[in-house]
């Protein structure tokens, strides 16, 4: 089942984590107390030029040195430290969360058009596929993912999420069927600037995963959500598609609809389906993805999972439930249900 929520302030006005914690707890009926998480953008202004790597170590003494060495081989660790946590009675701390602020050495991948991003992607894939007691859970600039096994309130209190401030937040309340109890399996999933929260199950996972693998992305989290982050990274960052067109590839119109379009539209949509057929995501899902400049929500082609959007001033809300939006912003001015496959996009101004 799972409950998802996201909020963006287009004027980049910051919000602390109090409201989203409450909104997520509003949807406890959709969770099982075995996983929750938050992504926040704008939380590390003092290191805005560094990649903030959030890492789960199984054991700091045993597993950390290898990651340190690898990072130093590819760049410079500007700052690092434990992510502060506060013991909760019902939450067993099975990982030690750590953060690095990292600057990759561009010259080491100078042939690439985006050397820094490619180095960090490479490192994330490398560390996560090695299975050596370290898991990178977020890797963007000036943002971070905080997640664990537990109810949303417990996870929030464990990290004191209310102490972080940002202009864009995502939250996820999990009802796991795949990897219960595993912190890595909780959402949001992240790669570079992209974070994803997802409610549903992707029946085309095998196809998507094999497609993305031939572009060097390796799915390591044993769940279907990470493939969404990689697909979007490929389509938007590497192939340069406008976000709306990327969603068109992931949840395209039916052929009947395409056949009925005008010449220009039809050509475009046919080309997208032909070229990106293996990226099409099937099965029931509602997804909210974000990067530092925008947040976007969309569902599968026949809307088998709920998704509601709401607006209040500069803020756009997207969630599984209207109640959660109202919990965050009782004065919400407008709410609506986006159509199947139709993205709702909010961008920061300027």
């Amino acid at each position, binding site marked *: 089942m799972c409950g998802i929520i996201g909020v963006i302030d287009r004027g980049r006005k910051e919000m602390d984590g109090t409201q989203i914690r409450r909104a997520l707890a509003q949807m406890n009926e959709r969770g099982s107390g075995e996983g929750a998480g938050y992504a926040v953008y704008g939380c590390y202004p003092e290191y805005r030029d560094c990649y903030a790597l959030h890492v789960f170590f199984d054991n700091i003494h045993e597993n950390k040195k290898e990651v340190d060495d690898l990072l130093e081989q590819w760049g410079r660790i500007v700052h690092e430290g434990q992510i502060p946590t506060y013991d909760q009675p019902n939450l067993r701390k099975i990982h030690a969360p750590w953060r690095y602020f990292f600057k990759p050495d561009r010259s080491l991948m100078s042939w690439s058009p985006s050397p820094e991003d490619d180095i960090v992607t490479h490192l994330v894939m490398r560390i996560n596929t090695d299975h050596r007691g370290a898991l990178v859970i977020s890797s963007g600039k000036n943002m971070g993912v905080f997640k664990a096994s537990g109810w949303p309130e417990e996870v929030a209190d464990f990290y004191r999420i209310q102490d972080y401030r940002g202009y864009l937040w995502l939250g996820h309340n999990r009802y796991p069927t795949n990897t219960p109890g595993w912190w890595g399996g909780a959402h949001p999933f992240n790669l570079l600037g992209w974070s994803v929260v997802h409610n549903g199950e992707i029946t085309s996972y095998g196809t998507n995963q094999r497609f993305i693998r031939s572009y060097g992305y390796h799915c390591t989290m044993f769940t279907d959500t990470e493939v969404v982050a990689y697909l979007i990274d490929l389509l938007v960052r590497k192939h340069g598609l406008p976000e709306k067109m990327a969603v068109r590839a992931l949840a395209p119109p039916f052929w009947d609809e395409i056949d009925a379009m005008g010449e220009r539209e039809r050509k475009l949509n046919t080309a997208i389906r*032909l070229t990106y*057929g293996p990226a099409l995501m099937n099965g029931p899902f509602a997804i909210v993805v974000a990067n530092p400049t925008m947040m976007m929500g969309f569902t599968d082609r026949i809307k088998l999972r709920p998704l509601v959007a709401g607006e209040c001033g500069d803020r756009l809300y997207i969630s599984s439930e209207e109640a959660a939006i109202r919990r965050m912003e009782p004065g919400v001015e407008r709410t609506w249900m986006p159509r199947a496959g139709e993205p709702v996009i909010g961008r920061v101004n300027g």
Partner: protein
Amino acid sequence: MTIGSTPPRYRVSIDRDQCMLCERCVEECPYGVFRRNGERMSVNSRQCTACHRCIAMCPRDAINLEEQPVDYRSHPVWTRKVREAIYNQARTGRIILAGMGNAGDYPVIFDRLVLDACQVTNPAIDPLREPMELRTYLGKKPSRLEIRNGGGDDVELVTELTPNLQLETPLMIAHMSYGAISLNAQLSLARAAAATGTFMGTGEGGLHQAIYPYQDRMIVQVASGRFGVDINYLERGAAIEIKIGQGAKPGIGGHLPGEKVCEDVSCTRMIPVGSDAISPAPHHDIYSIEDLKQLVRSLKEATEWKKPVFVKIAAVHNSAAIAAGIARSSADAVVVDGFRGGTGAAPRVFRDHVGIPIEAAIASVDEKLRQQGIRNQVSLVASGGIRESADVAKAIALGADAVYIGTAALVAMGCRVCGTCYRGLCPWGIATQREDLTARLDPDVESEHVANLIQAWTLELSELMGAAGINSIESLRGNRDRLRGYLLDEGILRVLDVKPVGA
């Protein structure tokens, strides 16, 4: 040793209480099994091929047929098959010919793969209520799109797409030439392809005028004999297929005996009446992958880059690397023909012992193309041994874009898989050119039967997809997660990249 020393393969018997001496069987059996003998029918079982024509036509259900009525002393190593082959070769000193597909005792991998269905966490989709998309495009696809973004809804497609074949169902009818099969049979298949929105192959036999009305549904074949190939032929087809090899007989050519080359066949093949049509093993202008690349280009140039060009190879040990080479040429699709593929006639030793099964070939070709990052740029067609809709679903889940069906389409027209196509006396009017026999096959009726089969499989395929929570064929393609192997060994599971049941 006399001919009579091997026992007959079949015993035909007539129930005299039922028989009303109508002599229908005498008319129907082209092999001369029946004869009227005074007030009773006499039977020469030795001539029988088990084609079932007499049984299907007898108005009184009076005819019975038994296989292997005479036992040999059983022996696990010296089977009936090997003993009889030796008798045959001792007598003739020749290569043994056989029809239809591989009859070796190999497990069918398809039968050891099971499909997935949804329960609770993801809902199944009901194809009766929700759209189910099976439309498939075969041809080259770009590796990425370039879209110019003018802001807002103003986006413009910059990439030009190359022509693709648009199939309404991922099933096509395989190449069977006029010559190998009758014109009525080919006509029925062509009409069925047109009616179901798919395509069929011409085989290496040229394109008969009677098929011209369906030419936009035909994939014209260019094989090593180049029979029937001219610019008119190439331009008429919807696509062109270069045949390098065939699953039933990898590595060897083809041979249409002169007796089958009647006036009409001679015209479409462009060879003299009564001459043997021999297709050599290799194309005499293809001795390397570069040569193939040039042929693909020449065909493309000749047809002004308007037609997709397919390349068909037999499934052999190294198919994956060969397919990767083909994908690098301008070819639009690679067709892989597994060792169960049917044929009119092939040396038995090839039919039963050379090549690999289509399941393994598709899996390894798909994987190799993915490793090289070129899978989605070229289409992959599986052929050879597809017997039912579940096989289609499994072939697609293993990585195929579409499949070719050959034998199944013939069976829909009455073929009983008797395996005697090479005699040219097919009692069902399929693998024959004898007029009285071809007249038995009515294209109006049989085209409908074939179309029904394609439609039925298409419906079953949509049900299978719906149950798996998938509403578009793209999401089944290469989705090996939705397959599990049942009693397959670890080695095969690794090649297929499929988990065992329960995992």
